[in-house]
């Protein structure tokens, strides 16, 4: 049988071909002739991937072989789409990709014993929440479309929510690993509903409060939804109590409903979602054109480089925030329903590998951490794709590994590093006893 790392290496080849073909497609559109530049870009990409692969071969030989190629597929796809929008943005994105891989390598090198995270869980949680507040700090905070999402210190700008999501998942995984027993045993039935024990209700209220706080103070509906959903997913996996999830969801909806009727920003987002045609040239412009772009794509799409992003002859955006929020609509426009489904399948495969890691992991913290990281990743993709397809209100969350944005790329590579660390240990522990037994020639 092919070893895990050899499978990873084989899987990387089609990714490099995909990237090369994608760039070739965009080039042939823009320059009307095909240079060998796309081959050079493909070669660079392949070289970076190979370096990462060799690093994994040395540091994490047993880690899941499919995750990195799948992520590389998304990154390659995102690079092509961003290049197609704006060459300089793609250069930034490529640099962040490399920076992301550096942080990926550092995480793997220095967090080999990732249980150490458990020891600092409160520090991590508080630090995560504090950076989340940074966008409201005058001087460094930035407001984007009414939400306080960004921080800019000198030349460095980043979106703290991307990093906070990892911090929160680490904290929840550790907290629930310790308290899951009491949460299950201490639960009692009141009026036919199984409630968690009051004593441990407190920390859960804190998480609920934090996400409500984000809704109102940071005005980030998307991140708030994403965090809370990840929390409920972890709570469910840790306790097996579906009623907890229902209670949590009810609390979130009540809170969201309350703030939707009192906080104008949240209210507007929901109004636009429900009635976009009320102001097609104003507030409804982005979501409507997001949908129109998809209608323009059809089954097979218009082809790379064919979609309209700006109103011809002007600088006015036809598809606002095409490189971030609405990149999925652009993808549907250019590669059609089939291409978009292929991309959704890649996300699902990543989720499947992530949950597989959680299944294989031997200790509670590893299981919960892998589950949480995978869930928050998949839910993030759902929140933004659901936003641009009008499943839920549109909010400014990035599409992991595809959207333009350094914080998103770097944070998600750290997330990937943690998953691979858990995977390596789980698979090594699973392989070791069997290997020993085989060596001893154990009877069947």
């Amino acid at each position, binding site marked *: 049988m092919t070893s895990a790392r050899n499978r990873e290496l084989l899987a990387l080849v089609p990714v490099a071909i995909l990237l090369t073909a994608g760039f070739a497609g965009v080039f042939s559109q823009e320059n009307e002739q095909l240079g060998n530049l796309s081959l050079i870009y493909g070669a660079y990409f392949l070289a970076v991937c190979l370096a990462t692969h060799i690093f994994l071969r040395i540091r994490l030989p047993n880690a899941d072989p499919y995750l990195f190629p799948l992520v590389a597929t998304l990154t390659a796809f995102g690079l092509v789409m961003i290049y197609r929008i704006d060459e300089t943005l793609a250069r930034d994105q490529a640099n962040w990709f490399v920076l992301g891989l550096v942080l990926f390598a550092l995480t793997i090198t220095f967090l080999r014993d990732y249980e150490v995270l458990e020891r600092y869980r409160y520090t991590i949680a508080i630090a995560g929440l504090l950076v989340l507040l940074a966008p409201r700090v005058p001087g460094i905070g930035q407001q984007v479309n009414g939400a306080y999402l960004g921080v800019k210190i000198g030349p460095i700008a980043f979106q703290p929510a991307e990093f906070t999501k990892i911090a929160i998942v680490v904290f929840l995984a550790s907290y629930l690993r310790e308290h899951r027993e009491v949460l299950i045993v201490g639960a009692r039935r009141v009026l036919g509903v199984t409630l968690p024990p009051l004593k441990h209700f407190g920390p859960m209220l804190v998480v609920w409060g934090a996400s409500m706080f984000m809704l109102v103070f940071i005005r980030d509906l998307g991140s708030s939804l994403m965090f809370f959903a990840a929390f409920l*997913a972890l709570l469910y996996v840790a306790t097996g109590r579906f009623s907890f999830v229902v209670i949590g969801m009810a609390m979130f909806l009540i809170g969201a409903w309350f703030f939707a009727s009192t906080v104008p920003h949240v209210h507007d987002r929901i109004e636009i979602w429900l009635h976009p045609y009320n102001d097609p040239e104003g507030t409804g412009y982005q979501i409507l054109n997001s949908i129109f772009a*998809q209608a323009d794509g059809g089954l097979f799409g218009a082809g790379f480089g064919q979609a309209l992003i700006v109103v011809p002859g002007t600088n006015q955006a036809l598809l606002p925030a095409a490189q971030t929020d609405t990149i999925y609509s652009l993808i549907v426009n250019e590669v059609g329903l089939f291409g978009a489904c292929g991309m*959704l399948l890649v996300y699902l495969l990543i989720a499947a590998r992530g949950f597989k890691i959680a299944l294989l992991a031997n200790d509670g913290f590893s299981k919960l951490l892998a589950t949480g990281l995978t*869930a928050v990743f998949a839910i993030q993709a759902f929140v933004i794709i659901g936003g641009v397809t009008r499943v839920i209100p549109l909010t400014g969350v990035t599409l992991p590994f595809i959207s333009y944005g350094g914080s998103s790329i770097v944070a998600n590579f750290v997330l990937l590093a943690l998953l691979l660390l858990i995977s390596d240990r789980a698979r090594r522990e699973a392989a070791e006893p069997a290997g020993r037994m085989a060596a001893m020639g154990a009877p069947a």
Partner: protein
Amino acid sequence: MNRQIVKLFAFIVVLFGVLVGFTSWWSVFDAEALKEKDANKRLLFEQQQIPRGRILAADGTVIAKSVPKGTGSSKRYVRRYPEGALFGHPIGYSFVQFGDSEFEQFHNKELIGEGSEFSSILDELLNERQEGNDIVTSIDADAQRLALAELEEAGFGAVVAIEPATGAVKVMASNAPLDPNRVPFDFEQLSQNEIDRPLVNRATQGLYPPGSTFKVVTAAAGLDSGAITAETTIDAPGSLEVEGTPLQNDFNQDFGPIGLDTALTNSVNTWFGQLGQQLGNDTLFQYMERFGFNATPAIDLPEDEVEKSGVWDIENEELLTAKDPVDLARLAIGQERLLTTPLQMAQVAAAVANGGKLMKPQIWKRVIDPDGRVTETMDPSVYSEAISEETAAELTTAMEGVVSEGTGTNAAISGVPVAGKTGTAETPGNKACGGGVDENQAWFIGFAPADDPQIAIAASVECTEQFGGDVAAPIFRDVAEAILNGE
């Protein structure tokens, strides 16, 4: 915990299933409806990115072309009409914000290159940008220029010239003219101008009383149905009592018993009035319909921009048929509630000129793809066999008399036999003319050479105090001469 993890994954699969469902809905199932939405400007922008084909006159004069603006992905094409108002009618305009009209609208598919499904799918696979086809028209640029210039001298009106044997439209001029280049800048002013109405192509949309030119149709019906022969005489008194109102000849002139030639040459109302009564509703309407009345002319212009000619019940906006009671005597001389377009009267002249066969009028001649290959050529087709060759020949002789010695001497061309008929319909109180009491609709229809017809023409002038023979016949003569000399 493993069971919960599997369930969580199942839940996420469901969530992504919802995404696939919504994406399918927007991109495929609801896509057509979304493309139609007013808020969706994409289709317009995309059409703007296609270099629309050129429209050319028969001699190669560029009537319409697309010029690029901007570069890269913001590159788009804007329509230009180098000759300004010269071909404004019947070519019309095509602008993303203001839509399209007339020839530009009718031939949109060829002009943006959607001719063949197969080639456009192939182009998509090859990632080639769509490119439009050129269309060469049969319009004679010099004759068009002359016609428009003379109309601008004479007043509002229209000139239509058709090649009788093929139906090829050589001239279609309408005054007030439209400079399509102005459309993007002055659209409101152009569409709200109630007097000039420059957006209206009077050749196909101007409904006018045809006056005595209609006597050609009455005569054709009489001869072809066998009601009369060329020798049959009818007594033509100075005045005839019809439905309680006297129908009079000019100056109440009493002609006595005369045949068709004399009656047509002198445009004798009482003669044709009696012929009409003799023919009856059924026969007269039957021949009108054979000449194209009561139907939209089969020309390559949008149906809603081409009016039907016939007896109009204006109040109910309905065309009367043979079943409806009409004043046959007045209908026979082009009165009653008869309203016709200049195009319709040109069709009458063309049918007689072509030995009785009415060809479908067509402006386009051939389509040329971006590689210079001719992909389609206009194939002349018969609209109807209106009258027999014999009838046509007899009618031609009578119409020659009109030009050689009758009301239409101003249409004569030296050295070329001309057949024609004048018409002058009194239109007192016409709002378009400012409501004056002496306003006429002046007409001339005819063809030349009478013995080998190359061109059939209808010229019509609104709001003139002159007669058809004075104001319309000279336009006929000059335009016919220009076309005959050009060949």
